[in-house]
């Protein structure tokens, strides 16, 4: 058993990095009072734009920039409806997800004949995203959110927006931070974890990120813990399938979800969402 965990651990860290970036982004945006259900679509679009940018320039770095750019575009669309026009956030987010899946699948199929999605993407040399996601960003976000007046006001937008002047400005900033993180996550998914784009390749990571933010109680510690547990459980269940103990694989596939749920439910502390989360 120990060996299984030792083998699974490095896999888990790499495989859950896109998820962690999404969780961090969603945490920031929810702290400012917005539920962005469209994060799944945001990641999917950035996974595609990252591949397009990397293929056109043959540069991984520009690929990552392209990923962030794609996520910013989606964020702008979401913000235009959810912040500027005060549309319902859940409906907007859902629409963004459907749009992102449709558009990326459409572009993917239209470009099937060309070489862009067929040729292998440029490989990353050295994994610079991993330490950023697991160490630098959590510390930076904790400092910004809890030790600066910007962070205080951003969080206040989520609790009591009437007390903050220029609410929209803080929410747009939060959305931009989320787009940067989720874009990086999407790009890592298609350039680092896997090589290339596939339809619907995010496979629900955005939705898992949403639930980890909630079960992590909108705290960075909870977010890190939740992602780590989920990632480890996901890698472990593959190791268990490979060890073929004869357990039905459907059960094993459910393990990460069940374990994360149980552990985060058991973590002490009252659940308290930002007061004005999702309020138009």
């Amino acid at each position, binding site marked *: 058993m120990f060996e299984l965990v030792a*083998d*699974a651990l490095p*896999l888990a860290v790499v*495989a859950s990095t*896109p998820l962690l970036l999404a969780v961090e982004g969603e945490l920031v945006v929810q702290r400012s009072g917005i539920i962005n259900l469209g994060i799944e679509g945001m990641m999917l679009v950035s996974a595609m734009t990252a591949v397009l940018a990397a293929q056109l320039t043959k540069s991984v770095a520009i690929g990552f920039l392209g990923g962030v750019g794609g996520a910013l575009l989606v964020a702008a669309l979401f913000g235009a409806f959810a912040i500027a026009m005060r549309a319902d956030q859940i409906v907007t987010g859902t629409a963004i997800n*459907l*749009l992102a*899946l*449709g*558009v990326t*699948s*459409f572009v993917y*199929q239209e470009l*099937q004949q060309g070489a862009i999605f067929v040729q*292998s993407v440029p490989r990353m040399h050295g994994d610079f995203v991993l330490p950023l996601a697991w160490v630098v960003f959590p510390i930076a976000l904790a400092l910004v959110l809890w030790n600066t007046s910007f962070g205080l006001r951003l969080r206040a937008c989520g609790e009591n927006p009437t007390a903050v002047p220029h609410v929209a400005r803080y929410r747009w900033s939060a959305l931009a931070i989320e787009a940067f993180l989720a874009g990086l996550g999407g790009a890592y*998914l*298609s350039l680092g*974890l*896997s*090589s*290339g784009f*596939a*339809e*619907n*390749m995010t*496979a629900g990571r955005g939705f898992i990120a949403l639930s980890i933010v909630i079960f992590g109680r909108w705290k960075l510690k909870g977010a890190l813990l939740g992602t780590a547990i989920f990632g480890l459980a*996901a*890698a472990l269940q*593959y*190791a268990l*399938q*490979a*060890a*073929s103990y004869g357990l039905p*694989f459907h059960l094993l*596939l459910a393990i990460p979800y069940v374990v994360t749920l149980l552990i985060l439910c058991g973590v002490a502390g009252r659940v308290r969402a930002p007061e004005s989360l999702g309020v138009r």
Partner: protein
Amino acid sequence: MKRAVLAFAFLVLACAKPETSAPANTSTAPAATRGAASTSKPFRVGLLTPGSINDGGWNAIAWEGMQRIQKELGAEISHQETKTPAEFDEGFRSYGAKKFDLAFGHGFEFQDAAKKAGAEYPDTMFVTTSGSTVARNVAPMRFRLEEATYLLGVIAARESKTGKAGLVGGINLPSIASTFEAFKAGAHSVNPKFEVKEIYTGNFDDLGAAKVATLSLINAGADFVFHQANEAGRGVFQACSERKIRCFGSNKNQNDLAPDVIVASAVLDVPGAFVRMAKTVRDKQFKPEIQMFGMANGIVTLEWNEKLKGTLAPATVAEVERLEAQIKQGALQVPLGF
């Protein structure tokens, strides 16, 4: 669901792209003048698909088959996209009423409609891709990819140094599980103690999950990997490239996707099978029985990666070629899972 989503997105795109690639209901071609069976009446073939023929997969491959039928047999072809059982009935009836020679229903789900329409329109042959419903003018096609995956199992068991191989599947569908069982049967024919471990990732989209699954198999000692994960198979190849572990391609010739590690691919030529089927009907050779397409008629093939073929033991290659010949002659029956 996915199709609904796509349809929605197309609406959102405000019909920026007119339907150029979708065929008009009946595209015509000059009637065939060759062939014993050719008469003044053109040979006409219809196709019902459960989804868009631009899907780059299951339905696209059927449409490719139809285009080849048009080109190679000079047939008139027609296509309808049908979503519901009522539309299946209507689609088949429309071909029957217009006295088409052959109508394909592209999937298991068309069997009932084929049977009903077959009874009503005796002059039209109704063929479903997969299934088991047979009547006087109704038959299913069945593809025996297992014959090739059996051989992949043989290669793995003969060439493995660890005595273990890994399988990565998307969803546990009968057609997928069956190719895995054949792989195991092939491996066990060489060495009954050879271990074959399998992982299902639960979907066909998640390249990352397929990669992690493959790495887990490699960690567990597998030094050959075969996949049935469609798109997500690319994650399998990436993991194998990184760890320098040999692997196999499936359904298409995927050897070029990772030429340094893919030893061979088990290839299924669905368009070729459509053409064969149409020829059989045109030449009045149609028999009401399950239409088998395997290595014997060249629809299923084992495609070597010539670059790596030389790195295998000559005895392995010779043995696989011997077994391949036996399968073609029918001397070796590969187990079919369903």
